[in-house]
């Protein structure tokens, strides 16, 4: 049976609905040793800002049951190096590139978006307004509906590429935030970023992370992510890229059936570098076994 695996996000056609989550895959350089980047629907690059960021002190990560906490603090080499080195590297691959953007202030977000305007290799922009590990950047913008609508509007005014807003799960009503992003003109949503967590080292009686709190990711949070995608899919019309704990095709299928149009594999790549490709193959096999001709039929099919 012929099978369609491709999906379209804001007019950008991905060869399949599986990408890799920002910050867990660098720009793909390191992972290109383990898998063929041409197989991926898209590569989502590590958050980049207008200038280099140092990030947080170490320890920056720790393991938790079926998950991990991270407080990298958005270390990045700045958009100039990113464009020269990372976007150039990605030129050679037949996959879409989604550039994840961060900033300490609205101005910094806008500067970075502006700088990326002429970059043909950036197919879509993903705006991280949900990083729990940077005081001024990210989450402060991401938990208030008015703030989300505002920042989305400002970015949309100047962005050349379609804009994906990346939502924080650390909120009472994520669907309200999703609606605010939609009202601000977002072309798509990415969800979820990490849940704020903490681990204490009881032997040393200190925080396990230098930053005290960190973002929880991995299979542990998958049920929360599926719920949130489902909630938002009932309330917005723009496509949703679902992520949070996806480690298998089954996990990805759950996300699609809950209402996502595409998915991202994040933390699972740390455990098995080839996860994203396994997920692609598994989704394809599921379609085959169930006589489903088009992956898009799965989106929101469980009601």
């Amino acid at each position, binding site marked *: 049976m012929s099978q369609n695996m491709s999906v379209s996000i804001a007019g950008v056609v991905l060869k399949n609905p599986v990408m890799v989550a920002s910050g*867990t895959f660098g720009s793909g350089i390191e992972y290109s040793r383990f898998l063929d980047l041409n197989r991926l629907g898209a590569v989502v690059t590590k958050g980049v800002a207008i200038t280099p960021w140092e*990030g947080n002190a*170490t*320890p920056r990560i720790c393991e938790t049951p079926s998950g991990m906490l991270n407080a990298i603090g958005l270390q990045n*080499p700045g958009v100039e190096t990113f464009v020269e080195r990372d976007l150039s590297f990605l030129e050679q691959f037949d996959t879409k590139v989604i550039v994840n953007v961060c900033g300490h202030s609205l101005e910094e977000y806008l500067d970075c978006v502006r700088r990326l305007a002429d970059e043909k290799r950036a197919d879509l922009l993903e705006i991280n307004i949900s990083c729990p590990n940077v005081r001024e950047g990210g989450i402060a913008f991401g938990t208030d509906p008015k703030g989300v609508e505002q920042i989305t509007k400002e970015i949309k005014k100047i962005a050349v590429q379609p804009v994906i807003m990346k939502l924080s799960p650390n909120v009472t009503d994520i669907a309200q935030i999703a609606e605010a992003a939609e009202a601000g003109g977002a072309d798509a949503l990415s969800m979820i970023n990490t849940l704020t967590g903490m681990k204490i080292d009881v032997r040393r009686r200190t925080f396990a992370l230098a930053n005290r709190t960190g973002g929880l990711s991995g299979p542990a949070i998958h049920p929360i992510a599926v719920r949130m995608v489902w909630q938002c899919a009932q309330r917005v019309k723009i496509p949703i890229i679902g992520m949070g704990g996806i480690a298998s095709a089954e996990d990805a299928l759950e996300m699609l059936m809950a209402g996502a149009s595409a998915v991202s594999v994040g933390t699972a*790549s740390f455990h098995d*570098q*080839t996860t994203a490709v396994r997920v692609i193959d598994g989704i394809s096999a599921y379609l085959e076994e169930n006589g489903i001709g088009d992956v898009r039929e799965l989106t929101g099919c469980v009601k």
Partner: protein
Amino acid sequence: MAQIYRESAEVLGREQIAEGIFSLWLQTEQIAAECTPGQFVSVYCADASRLLPRPISVCEADPEKGKLRLVFRVAGKGTEEFSRLKNGERVQLVGPLGNGFPLEKLAGRKVLLAGGGIGIPPMLQLAKALSRGEKQAAELTAAAGFRDSLFLTEDFAPYCRLLLATEDGSAGTRGTVLDAMREGGAAPDVICACGPAPMLRALKQYTAEKGIACWLSLEEKMACGVGACLSCVCRSAEVDGHSRVKNKRVCTEGPVFAAEEVEL
């Protein structure tokens, strides 16, 4: 970019070599053949609740037979899982990872290998590499510091002179690796070290004062192990070429750094 392999390695032998310290011989396809001293492997847990790799240094490698030896201390649940591996079982590895010690800069020189506790195992493969062949050191001494019970000391014997220190004085010099070096009259012109942070700090200071070269193998928590996630950075003296900030990745630019390159 050097090749890195993901392998399911068969356990050939497991042995407890001291209180809480285990030795594993593993059959690899490529890793043992291609690793250099000071490199490490990511070892993955079978238990699905533990996602992250455990970085473990290469203790010995037999490139011809593809055999790899890891020696580790049971420090938590992951290493506890590895300590229960049985012959014939398999364990997931990714490697070889990191840079390893700069053999070309060590060849022909008076080298001292300083290992503290569970930092001793990687020194064994380094001792082997420097004791013969084109990379042979002019003089090779190892100084090993233990908490109490000794391990691997006999393994070093064929390759170099071995100075011992124990915290309780039950064997060798009472005190640290530095104490053993002083007592043993070691006068190296380069030191390679792996061990706890206080030991590395002391060696960095000591070698700076003496004006001798020093290479340190660092530890940091790792998530990807391959340079993508920026978990494992250490503070570097200079702005790093990759990160464009004063951070270097222990898993990629390290784990071995010139002492003056990093802040401890």
